[in-house]
């Protein structure tokens, strides 16, 4: 068996491009997510159509632009400019102040602001709308308090649990770890097994006295090791570069990862037993595994918001449960009592995949 493990490592190390993918991709992903990719809205380009240009509209404009959410792209001159600005995709929001804004506010007690949003990206539109309303309302409240003799109000003290600086890396690191363990374990093992089939070396191995189970273990162990190295480098990066905490027990984190890995490896073996060529195995693990892992697991999009049917579908994604576990350990710092259910689910999936692949594997030998 040791000979096997050594051989598998040789295959990996002799192929520098694979090494680059194995180690480069995860690091690139963490760095991208850490530095570049965020769901937050910053510096959204807006345009302002100010029909009034008085003290109040300038004050509101100033308030808006002094927040980091908005960046003034330009002032528009007329209503006719709005449509082209949106169509060219230059601005996400246009703010329209009506004529005689300050005067109307003074005399009639009411003045109107229109918020126009490019809703082709509904998420951005929604958030921009909420921010704009928040800023203007705060301004209104301040004015009201100033003019009222007795400024009565309720103040709010905010506390952000687990992620006080609202860093998106906190959200993404568990996802990247999951995708990566899935990729390395399931895809790499399935490819390396089908490669032996394609090259014809699998027959020689099966004709040897080594038990099929040992062949599989020998192929799988190197990827476990690699995944672990990867896991640790991602953790180091997220802790030391992005200041992400690991609140809970590191031992528990590693143990849960090992369980998830086992599940993914079993899945990889299962894929390899149903595919005849490397190309098939790759496409299967790439298409059938990657996009759903990213989209259905709650990595980027919250599962709670999906249609019910998709929520059921996401229930059978092992990655979904692992992401919950990771967040619990790393960010909430809670123990196994909080996620024994998720652990159990992954455990049973692992058993299922192992059982299925043993069955498939021996059937295949029969052919």
């Amino acid at each position, binding site marked *: 068996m040791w000979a096997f493990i050594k051989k598998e490592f040789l295959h990996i190390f002799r192929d520098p491009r694979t090494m680059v993918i194995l180690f480069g991709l995860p690091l690139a992903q963490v760095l991208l997510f850490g530095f570049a990719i965020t769901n937050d809205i910053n510096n959204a380009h807006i345009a302002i159509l100010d029909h009034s240009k008085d003290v109040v509209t300038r004050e509101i404009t100033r308030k808006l632009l002094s927040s980091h959410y908005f960046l003034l792209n330009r002032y528009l001159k007329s209503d006719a400019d709005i449509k082209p600005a949106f169509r060219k995709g230059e601005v996400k929001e246009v703010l329209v102040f009506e004529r005689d804004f300050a005067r109307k506010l003074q005399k009639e007690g009411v*003045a*109107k602001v*229109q918020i126009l949003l490019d809703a*082709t990206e509904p*998420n951005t*539109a929604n958030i921009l709308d*909420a921010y704009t309303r928040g800023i203007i309302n705060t301004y209104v409240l301040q004015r009201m308090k100033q003019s009222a003799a007795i400024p*009565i109000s309720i103040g709010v003290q905010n506390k952000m649990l687990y992620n006080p600086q609202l860093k998106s890396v906190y959200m993404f690191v568990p996802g990247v770890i999951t995708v990566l363990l899935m990729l390395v374990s399931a895809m790499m093992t399935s490819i390396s097994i089908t490669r032996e089939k394609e090259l014809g070396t699998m027959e020689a191995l099966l004709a040897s006295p080594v038990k099929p189970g040992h062949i599989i273990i020998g192929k799988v162990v190197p990827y476990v090791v690699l995944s672990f190295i990867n896991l640790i480098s991602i953790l180091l990066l997220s802790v030391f570069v992005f200041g992400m905490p690991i609140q809970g027990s590191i031992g528990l984190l590693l143990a849960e990862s090992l369980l998830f890995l086992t599940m993914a490896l079993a899945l990889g073996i299962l894929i390899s037993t149903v595919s005849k060529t490397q190309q098939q195995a790759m496409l299967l693990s790439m298409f059938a595994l990657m996009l759903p892992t990213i989209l259905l697991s709650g990595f*980027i999009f919250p599962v709670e918001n999906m249609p019910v049917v998709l929520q059921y579908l996401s229930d059978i994604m092992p990655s979904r449960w692992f992401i919950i576990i990771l967040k619990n350990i790393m960010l909430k710092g809670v123990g196994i009592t909080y996620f024994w259910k998720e652990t159990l689910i992954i455990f049973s999936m692992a058993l299922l995949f192992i059982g299925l692949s043993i069955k498939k594997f021996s059937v295949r030998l029969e052919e």
Partner: protein
Amino acid sequence: MLPIIFIIPIVQLLVLSYTATFEIKNVRFVVVDQDHSSESRKLIDKFSGSAFFTDMGHLPDYKAAENAVQHDDADQIIVIEPDFEKDLVNEHHAQIQLVTNAINGSAASLMNAYAISIINNFNKEILIKKLPLKFKGMPIQLSSSFWYNPELDYITYMVPGILVLLVTIIAMFLSSMNIVKEKEIGTIEQLNVTPITKFEFIAGKLIPFWIIAMIDLLIGLTLARFVFGIVIVGNPFLLLFVTSVYLVLVLGMGLLVSTLTNTMQQAMFISWFFLVIFILMSGLFTPIESMPVWAQQLNAINPLAYFIKINRMIMLKGSGFADFQRDFYILAAYAVLMLGFATLRYRKRA
């Protein structure tokens, strides 16, 4: 191969388009009300009455509430101190505490914004009630209108994006694995002894994939129209035209990868590496504006970023050619460049 090329993308389009929503409809909150006054109850009623919030009940102390968040039974905690009403009456000012699960930072800031707007409205009502003569109603009236997608429908937003994504993945993988496959099984030598020119060879590889990807796109657009009810606002032929140029670019890239690698596995991994980065940075899932400047500059070489932008402009906004001509010319030049490289790199004596 056929099911992989046609059926999987369609299934994924149908399923995955529904996944992508950040929308927060249902903030689950728990209350720790230590005041039990009429004012505190009124405030909580405001939350319960909002469509965005769901009341998960009252808890005796903060510890129990935090435990609920830890178990993921609640997203937000509203803590009202014992002297809330008294402070409001006597001091004209009272504090409440708002605790939010911030693991998902952007969701947290949105939840927070919703909560604060409820509290602000409550504040205004107090003022209007106390000083009815001075304030008749809201002094500044805000009205929002959401252009191109008034219902804020996420499907409308995701379908064009996912469609582009799937067509790109198909085109990239088919082309990047192609030449290298012939290298691996040795048929390339067969071709090398024929008198075809480099350019003919590359063109011969490109055209079938181009047709497959176009068919995928057409199927996808048909589904978008009849399943998701997305009408292409702009000119559909303009969309097809831009797509045809974009596909040449992606296929050119794939073929370049294919000429540079020796095994299918390598080709697959390299295209995967670039695709992941292209996809994540393309603005498909996250807004490009929020990225730091260097990352936005990096997108200058990201074909997907250009194409998703143009695609959404045509499909959803009805933009014309003049609106995105700069981006289009970049795509076209890029396509020529990639194809040129692929042709140059392909040697007949491999």
